């Protein structure tokens, strides 16, 4: 029954996507260009995908093993939360969620299309085309609603790694919201090229989509890093794994795009470049999906095992060749017309930022693809791993941080040295003082001191800009600050995101430079000390759970005479896997220091525990959260401002020149 409903819903969605393309194209050919037809199609598609997804959830929650996906991925013993999350734990389910989100974004885009809005209709057609591909993949490549006969009494349950932490339930939807959200600006960019729409209209229309998608992507990456740290037990949060790079690559280019879009909106520069960036971002989301979903990473030869790999590859080729081909032909029509006056200006710093972000993307991309391409070309197998990416990323990231610190302080257009110095002086002084304090406190790593300096510059800069903006206003101090932020929420959202990035950088620097690691062979009841703490093994824990055995150690952590925590690192041995998996025990102290314990071996009365001390590593996810919040604030607050503007007749100019 459910299998039938789900299959019908998927095929209805497919038909609606086709109708959306057809209706949009037809409306484009008429004079009035009415969006009525596309709107009906888009909402039908959304309704169909909601029904399909809800059917899957119902099937999972009610243990309906007559559906193939449920039979393959679910077990009666799975707890409710993970039953719900199982809907996106494997390939077909992820595609279903992807299609649902895409249908949602499409409905929102189509809803914003007004009468005679050719650009919007063009974008609707493109979004319909993308939806047609993804729902088609779902319907033809791997229908999760296929019926199973005979119906099995129980299933194997989802991948064990995905069902032991609540973060894994939120991570994929966040990432998909980010990936799929990039379809909207891509659709508008392609429509602008195809319809020869010049100027920043499409950039302004898609700004909010891009910001929202970017915020979700940021949050998704941060949550993924956190999950990797809490669950995988190798002691880190970012391994430059191809799957991680697949999410980081579109993030980098989308970040470049957000900045070039500001320049285009403010100064009418970099028009064609912005188009190229958004086309690249979308192509990279498809590339990322291809890399993570086709099995090509495990081996070049394995990706044809499911029809989805070749289909995604074909779509990637169509998207990148098609959109960049269109771009090559039409770029002149969308390029901007105003001159750049000086490199020592805000535009100049934006250019440098774009250059660095693009080179960063290029480096990560070539490192990720090189082994795959080389193996495909001549069978040679090489690895490109963390040491390579770290070495390449650190200098680029530091240069980006510097540009990020300087950018908001430099004025638009051009400037004199004296004017720049007047702006830069106070933040730089604060940065130097902060650096000096850290050095006096005993930190000798130039890398960490530099990051502290930049973070202090950024925070001081926000303070200086706030104070300067507030100086000319009336009311109490808090009220004036709020007014300043409200006057230009986009800018202040950006500042918040910058501070988030700086906090991430601080967390990375501190937890890398100051990390300590020791392997302690603990005899039961005999404490050993490390990093200012003492560790005592007080006994083992053994548990048998569905499909796995858990073999853990109880370790009492004390500082001085005070017992702080009992931590229980464990090894999980899965019945169907040879290698055991470390389950770390993590404790964040009040001073922000993490103790990260993993158990290596355990014998009678004795355990070998690896202890890692990571100072301030929590800043990495906190900063990621701040960054995502900044993006969301910038996206959502500006909408409120527009409403306020419409209500009041206060001249916009008065609200503008905080940051000149």
């Amino acid at each position, binding site marked *: 029954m459910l299998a039938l409903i789900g299959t019908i819903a998927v095929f209805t969605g497919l038909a609606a996507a086709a109708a959306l393309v057809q209706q949009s194209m037809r409306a484009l050919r008429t004079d009035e260009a009415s969006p009525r037809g596309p709107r009906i199609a888009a909402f039908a598609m959304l309704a169909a995908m909601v029904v399909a997804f809800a059917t899957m959830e119902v099937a999972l929650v009610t243990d309906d093993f007559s559906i193939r996906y449920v039979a393959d991925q679910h077990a009666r013993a799975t707890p409710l939360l993970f039953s719900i999350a199982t809907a996106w734990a494997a390939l077909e389910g992820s595609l279903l969620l992807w299609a649902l989100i895409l249908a949602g974004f499409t409905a929102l885009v189509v809803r914003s299309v007004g009468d005679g809005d050719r650009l919007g209709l063009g974008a609707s057609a493109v979004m319909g085309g993308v939806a047609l591909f993804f729902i088609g993949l779902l319907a033809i490549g791997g229908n999760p609603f296929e019926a199973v006969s005979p119906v099995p009494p129980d299933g194997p349950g989802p991948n064990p790694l995905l069902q032991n932490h609540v973060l894994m339930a939120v991570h994929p939807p966040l990432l998909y919201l980010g990936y799929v959200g990039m379809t909207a600006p891509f659709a508008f960019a392609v429509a602008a090229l195809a319809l020869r729409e010049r100027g920043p209209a499409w950039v302004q229309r898609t700004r909010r989509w891009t910001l929202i998608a970017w915020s979700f992507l940021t949050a998704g990456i941060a949550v993924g890093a956190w999950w990797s740290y809490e669950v995988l037990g*190798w*002691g*880190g949060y970012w*391994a430059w*794994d191809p799957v991680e790079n697949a999410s980081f690559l579109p993030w980098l280019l989308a970040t470049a795009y957000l900045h070039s879009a500001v320049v285009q909106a403010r100064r009418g520069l970099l*028009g*064609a470049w912005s188009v190229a960036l958004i086309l690249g971002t979308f192509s990279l989301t498809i590339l990322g999906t291809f890399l993570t979903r086709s099995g090509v990473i495990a081996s070049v*030869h394995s990706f044809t095992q499911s029809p989805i790999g070749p289909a995604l590859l074909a779509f990637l080729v169509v998207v990148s060749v098609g959109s960049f081909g269109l771009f*090559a032909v039409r*770029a*002149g029509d969308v*390029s901007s*017309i*105003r*001159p*750049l*006056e*000086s490199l020592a200006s805000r535009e*100049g710093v934006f*250019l*440098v930022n774009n*250059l660095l972000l693009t*080179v960063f993307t*290029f*480096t990560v991309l*070539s*490192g990720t693809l*090189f082994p795959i391409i080389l193996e495909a*070309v*001549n*069978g*040679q*197998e*090489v*690895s*490109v*791993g*963390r*040491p*390579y990416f770290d070495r390449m990323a650190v200098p680029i990231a530091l240069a980006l941080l510097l540009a990020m610190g300087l950018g908001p302080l430099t*004025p638009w257009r*051009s*400037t*004199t040295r004296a004017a720049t110095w007047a702006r830069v002086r106070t933040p*730089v*002084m604060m940065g*130097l*003082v902060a*650096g*000096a304090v850290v*050095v*006096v406190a005993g930190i*000798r790593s*130039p890398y960490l*001191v530099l990051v502290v300096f930049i973070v202090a510059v950024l925070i001081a800069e926000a303070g200086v800009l706030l104070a300067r903006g507030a100086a000319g206003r009336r009311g109490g101090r808090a009220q004036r600050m709020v007014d300043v932020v409200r006057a230009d929420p986009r800018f202040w959202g950006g500042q918040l995101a910058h501070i988030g990035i700086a906090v991430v950088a601080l967390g990375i620097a501190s937890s890398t430079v100051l990390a300590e690691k020791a392997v302690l062979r603990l005899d039961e009841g005999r404490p050993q000390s490390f990093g200012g703490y003492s560790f005592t093994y007080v006994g083992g824990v053994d548990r048998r759970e569905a499909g796995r055995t858990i073999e853990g150690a109880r370790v009492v952590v004390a500082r001085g005479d005070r017992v702080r925590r009992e931590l229980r690192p464990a*090894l999980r041995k899965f019945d169907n896997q040879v*290698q055991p*998996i470390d389950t770390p025990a993590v404790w964040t102290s009040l001073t922000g220091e993490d103790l990260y314990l*993993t158990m*290596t071996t355990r014998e009678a009365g004795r355990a070998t525990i690896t202890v890692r001390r990571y100072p301030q590593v929590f800043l990495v996810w906190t900063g990621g959260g701040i960054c995502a919040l900044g993006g969301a604030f910038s996206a959502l607050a500006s909408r409120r401002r527009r409403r306020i503007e419409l209500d009041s007749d206060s001249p916009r100019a008065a609200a503008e020149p905080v940051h000149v």
Partner: protein
Amino acid sequence: MIASATVIVVGLTADRAPASPDRVASISARLRCPVCQGESIADSPSGIARELQGVVREQVAAGRSDAQIEAFFQQRYGGWVLLDPPRRGATLVLWVLPVVALAGGAAIVISFWSSRRRLVEDAAPEVGDANAVEDDPRPPDELVLDARRTARRSLVGSTALALACAAGAVAVSASLRGSGGEARAADRPTPSMTTAPGAGTGRDLSSVSEEEMEEVVSANPQVVPMRLALVERYLRKGELEAAERHADVALGLAAEPDDRQRALQLSGWLTALAGNPTEGAALLTKSLQLDPNDLDTQWFLANVRLTGLGDIAGAASLLEGMLTRELAPEKRTVIEAKLAEARATP
């Protein structure tokens, strides 16, 4: 401000404790764990990763250099084992490309800026003034055209650059492949011939059991060097059936000349041992064509000719050829003894 800067500079330059790098940790972080998904042996909790770390520790203690240890692992497991791609051979491209991209990008930005600046100076000199008013005067028509042309030129330029990068990458990686192979062959420890023929290489992952290596091989069926290491292991232990089984698979899979040469060599020797000296000699000869200077292959072939085929002259000429090269004294002794044996055979 100056005081703070001084504190930072003095603090960072003075009394920096001499760092004592943990070589075992840093080398382990650069070696890929064979059974995991892209983890280094320093990060992986698996048993084999711990054993391999033990091998690294032993080798560091034995005073071998980082490069020697990496070469050792590369020889065992293939180039695949190095997480930090070496700056030679095909992977040199990875180190060159980002620098080229940065330089090219910077050149485009600068040319974009300077051509635009010329435009500004020619067409609207008053705009060059610092802190000018917000609103631009509408640029004249020819400025629009010129700017568009500039934009197109820089776009064409960047596309050409990207294409050139990609083409260069493919060309360089293709042309450097051979030299990468040579470098690897040179890094390989030369065979120890103090023991019986078929002893393979001297050092081995003695602490890793066959079962674990089997696991590695079955987890990475495409990785030929690992399988060949396992063949050598079985060969040395005298488990010829297991060795042959893997040698056959390796011979089927080996695409790289280096792998192919070793696969042919080991299969040839195993075939000869299994009682088929003619076919064994043929395989060894093929292997020798791929690397005419491989002492192991020459040694195997000489033995097959002498004892299997009774081709004394052929064996003697091979052994004589080997003696013309620079050899460690103990190897020279073994080869000379074999040559004497050949000449003594009626």
